């Protein structure tokens, strides 16, 4: 447990001491904020729910996928490139606690990036003339969707970064894969009609984020995200362990 915490803190401080992290956060908040503002002015004509305002936007989604890619791409690939993986795994640390600590740190960084979004409804209320308090259940559901899909995709990203020693290669693989999975539910996937297409359409993505933002919590995407993340974490541990039998 102690080594998990130490590795988690090390990875988190690696994120937080990089200027890139702040550039990325600024970019993310700029896109999310201007998007929110644009939707807000649209909603004078056609009223939108708060969930739609906050979570249903193509640009926000694209930014989310980019953020997840950037957070995940270097997790294990950089350790492999610097050969520090050998230094870590010859200390009394299990492969599993390394993988879990990396994942937890990425998830923490992701949560930190998304946290300012939670201020939007309160800003809206502070600057509006009266009106009802924001529906907290709706907001919670929206954030739950974000957390579930984000957590699932981070696990996929971590898995990909364990396969290569180049973060560029990891990023080039992660981003298109995540886009494909994410938009498969709302855009015709390449293999539409076939079994693969049908499977793709069920992978939690944009469609489910939209559902969650409307307050619809379906057990199926919840289960899919949690078990999917667990599967990819397990696969990552196996990739790290594979050095023993290669």
């Amino acid at each position, binding site marked *: 447990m*102690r*080594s998990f915490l*130490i*590795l988690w803190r*090390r990875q988190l401080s*690696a994120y937080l*001491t990089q200027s890139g992290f702040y550039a990325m956060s600024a970019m993310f908040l700029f896109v999310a904020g201007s998007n929110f503002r644009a939707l807000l002015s649209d909603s004078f004509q056609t009223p939108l729910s708060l969930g739609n305002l906050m979570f249903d936007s193509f640009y926000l989604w694209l930014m989310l996928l980019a953020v997840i890619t950037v957070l995940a791409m270097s997790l294990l690939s950089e350790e492999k490139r*610097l*050969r*520090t993986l*050998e*230094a*870590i*795994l*010859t*200390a*009394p*640390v*299990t492969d599993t606690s390394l993988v879990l600590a990396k994942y937890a740190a990425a998830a923490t960084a992701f949560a930190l990036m998304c946290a300012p979004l939670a201020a939007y409804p309160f800003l809206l209320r502070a600057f509006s003339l009266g009106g009802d308090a924001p529906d907290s259940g709706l907001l919670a559901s929206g954030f739950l969707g974000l957390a579930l899909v984000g957590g699932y995709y981070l696990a996929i990203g971590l898995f990909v970064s364990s396969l290569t020693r180049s973060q560029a290669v990891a990023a080039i693989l992660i981003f298109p894969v995540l886009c494909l999975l994410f938009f498969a539910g709302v855009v015709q996937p390449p293999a539409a009609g076939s079994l693969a297409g049908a499977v793709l359409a069920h992978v939690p993505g944009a469609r489910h984020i939209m559902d969650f933002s409307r307050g619809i919590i379906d057990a199926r995407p919840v289960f899919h995200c949690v078990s999917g993340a667990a599967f990819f974490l397990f696969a990552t541990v196996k990739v790290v362990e594979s*050095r*023993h*039998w*290669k």
Partner: protein
Amino acid sequence: MIVAKQLTKRFGAVVAVDNVSFEVQKGEIVGFLGLNGAGKTTAMRMLTGYLSPTSGSAEIAGLDVCEHSLEVRRRIGYLPENAPLYPEMRVDEYLRFRAGLKGVGRRRIGSRLDQVKELCGLQDSGRRIIGQLSRGYWQRVGLADAIVHEPEVLILDEPTMGMDPNQIRSSRELIRSFAGRYTMLFSTHHLPEAQAICQRAMIINKGRIAASGTPGELLGLLKGNVKVVAEIQGPAGAVRDMLLRLPGALSAAGGEDDAGREPGWDRYVLECGAGRDLRADVFTLAARNGWLLRELRVERGSLEDAFVEMTAQAEENGVS
């Protein structure tokens, strides 16, 4: 303290370490000598539990490295090849991270850090960023990391690689100062280093141990003849003839007036059969004939010669 039993590692068709067995006693300093790609790093990675052997086993302090991997890792200080560190971290920050990871108690980390920094000559470098350190200091941070949790066994993979001569000398002294405190296995392809540091050396070639012994014993394995070098003032032709007539002498060379040398003095190289030392005979010969003698020494082969000879031998055996 370290026991390897028929340790073998295959990567596909390539046999990196082939049936290697050895023991290192407590407190001993043993060098692993071999060319690049001889299997040193792979063997060390198996001892530290980073890789599993294809067959065979290894024990550290009586514990199997595969079954009790975490317990073994607690007892080992390992410096991997090239000393991988995080270039963006500060020295203190890195050592603190490593000490915590290796289970040094939170309260003891501070004092332990001071100790290892002093041992490794890093007292004034705590605030420096690792990526800006010179190669020698970089390696010192790696060494400090290896000993930070007070391990019983030190395994150092090419600890002086990439250093300049001054850095090599100071880190060699540093490593030598570890003697007695740790059981140590280190690898190198730099032979004078093994000669300077270790009590025993193993020459590893193509995954097998070609020879093992003290540096002196390894030199003794040299088949070559003994060469006696003498500087004598006397009639050149006569001196050479007389030297050649000494019992046990195989050949005598020199005596020609070398350009640039002091006139009158000639340097002779007398080759004698293995195990023979004709220095005393040369002295009596010179004394009896009234020649002047101002240098008389045996030219010893270096470990380098032993090494080249043994790896070449293994090559021949492999071919035949």
